[in-house]
């Protein structure tokens, strides 16, 4: 795989504001403190990684180098511990520009071989893209994977 294309696991971030004491902000108005504290608390209750995060999922994108237009996203490793393909899996692939405000693109992945899925994604602009894989297992477990696709070039 090209060095510029790196698969990244599900991201969790530590809410470092949790537990901080804000009493030192004596200038802030009580109402603002209340809102701030409430938001800090709920922001700390973010979802933990899904149970299926241990699947040996691997993603590739072609062609290389990636250019504007149709890109083929191939996802392998949708298998159980015995390397048997999982049944009833739904995978939606989403492409987002790294810059906010751009239209995301979506495609449903189809199983092309046991445990292997493929989607055609229309990367319609040059630049840095992030490809998200929304994987839903038969038992309802959701898995998110992210693939950074840097420097998609114009045709």
């Amino acid at each position: 795989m090209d060095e510029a294309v790196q698969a990244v696991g599900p991201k969790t971030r530590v809410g470092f504001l949790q537990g901080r004491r804000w009493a030192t902000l004596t200038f802030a108005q009580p109402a603002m403190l209340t809102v701030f504290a409430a938001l800090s608390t709920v922001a700390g209750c973010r979802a933990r990684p899904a149970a299926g995060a241990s699947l040996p999922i691997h993603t590739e994108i072609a062609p290389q180098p990636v250019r504007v237009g149709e890109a083929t996203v191939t996802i392998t490793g949708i298998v159980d511990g015995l390397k048997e393909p999982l049944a009833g899996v739904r995978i939606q692939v989403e492409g987002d520009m790294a810059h906010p405000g751009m239209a995301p693109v979506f495609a449903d992945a189809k199983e092309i071989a046991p445990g292997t899925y493929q989607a055609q994604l229309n990367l319609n602009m040059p630049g840095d893209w992030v490809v998200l894989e929304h994987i839903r297992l038969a038992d309802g477990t959701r898995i998110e994977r992210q693939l950074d696709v840097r420097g998609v070039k114009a045709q």
Partner: protein
Amino acid sequence: MTRMPGAVAQPEDDLEEGELAEAPPFDLLHVPVIGAFLRWRHSRTFLAIPLLAVSIVMILQGLLGPALSPKNLATVLTWVHFRGALVLALLLAGNLFCLACPFMLVRNAMRKFVTPRFTWPRALRNKWIPAALIALILFSYELFSLWSSPSLTAWVIVGYFVAVLAVDGLFKHGAFCKYVCPIGQFNFVAATASPLEVSVRDREVCDTCGTKDCIRGRRAPGSDLVIFQRGCELALFQPAKVGNMDCTFCLDCVHACPHDNVGMLSRLPSAELMSDPQRSGIGFFSRRKDIAALVIVFCFGALMNAFGMVSPVYTVETWLGRVLHIQQEAPILGMLFAIFLVIEPVMLLGGAAAVARAWAGLKSGWLAVAVRYTYSIAPLGFGMWLAHYGYHFFTGLYTIVPVTQNALAELGWPILGDPRWTLVGLPKTVVEPLEFGFLLLGLAGSLLIAWRLAEDDSEEHALRAFSPWAVVCLILFAASVWLMLQPMDMRATMMAG
């Protein structure tokens, strides 16, 4: 007698027979509901509270929310909606962001407990620092790809609050607004093209005013320390104020004036740049090299900022890196900024000044001519910012909806439903004509200002004085159009190829 803001008052006796007296300008403060609201003493606080709440949400989302920029409120609101709304408000009304500034709300709260003891150093009472800060922010934006990083965006907002509190906690009056704030200086330059100006309604009322509350404020009898109502913290004395430079639209002068003689009046956009009167709190534009430098950073920074988002920038960077054997992005980017913000302006503006001086026989020195006419390119720069930020704003207008839905869903409150990620914005076919319209407006404004200045400088050879500046304006316009026609190509690492 009423007067047009930015225009020189004309006694009625001087009117030719049959000439109609100028109609009084539109005054936003006389508009029902809006005027009453703005005249309300707490209107600024009322406007700033929601913006402060949004700022806090942006900080929290930026630090704790999704790491992906298009899905985070911090990046979407900052780089798509805030910037676009800012320039559109400046185009359609005036400096409304400074009016509702959330940083000032926190600063005012702090000043209830902390009394600043120092005055801003005399050597720093100019625009060199904010001009450098704008350049630094634009540089950081490219180098650290702030648009792609919610956490860095959040830290920029946090840093802004810290800077406001530090500067205005130490220094009296509006030191941060007048001498530091990069957003404020951006707004001041852009607001020269705004249709509204905070100005006196009737000059004669000011002539008879003995208290000058608009600048001094109102204090408790016998105690200078107890302030009932602030006067202008940015040292703008209303009767001598010309234009929008340094005006935050805070409306302190409106509230302070005991004669209800200050309004938000309509005017010809950019008219304040067509002449060079002495301005309260500023002096003459033509003698302010620092403000001219600010205008240069504003205009050429607009080009550089747009250049950083199109494909050719990567070709140039890669070529520079190969020729100079440099692998790091920072020095290459620094060189590009030096070319755009220093070398190019010196060549274009300096060259035009030299030609205009020699050809039209202008008596002023080369630098004085360059400084005087530099202000004429401000509308072009504003046009470029409008085209750029307006593009992101309109094409990403609705993205705030799914991002907000997503933020609430992540908090466990999916009250707005599942995120509708397909909601994006207006189609490019609609937005692109707007972009070119903004650029054309900027070109028209710049040419008109340059022509008026040339007429003032040399009645006989106005065309000769004007032509070099017209060429500069056309070059900048052509560069802007070329940039707008390039495919957008946003990469986090420029040197990656």
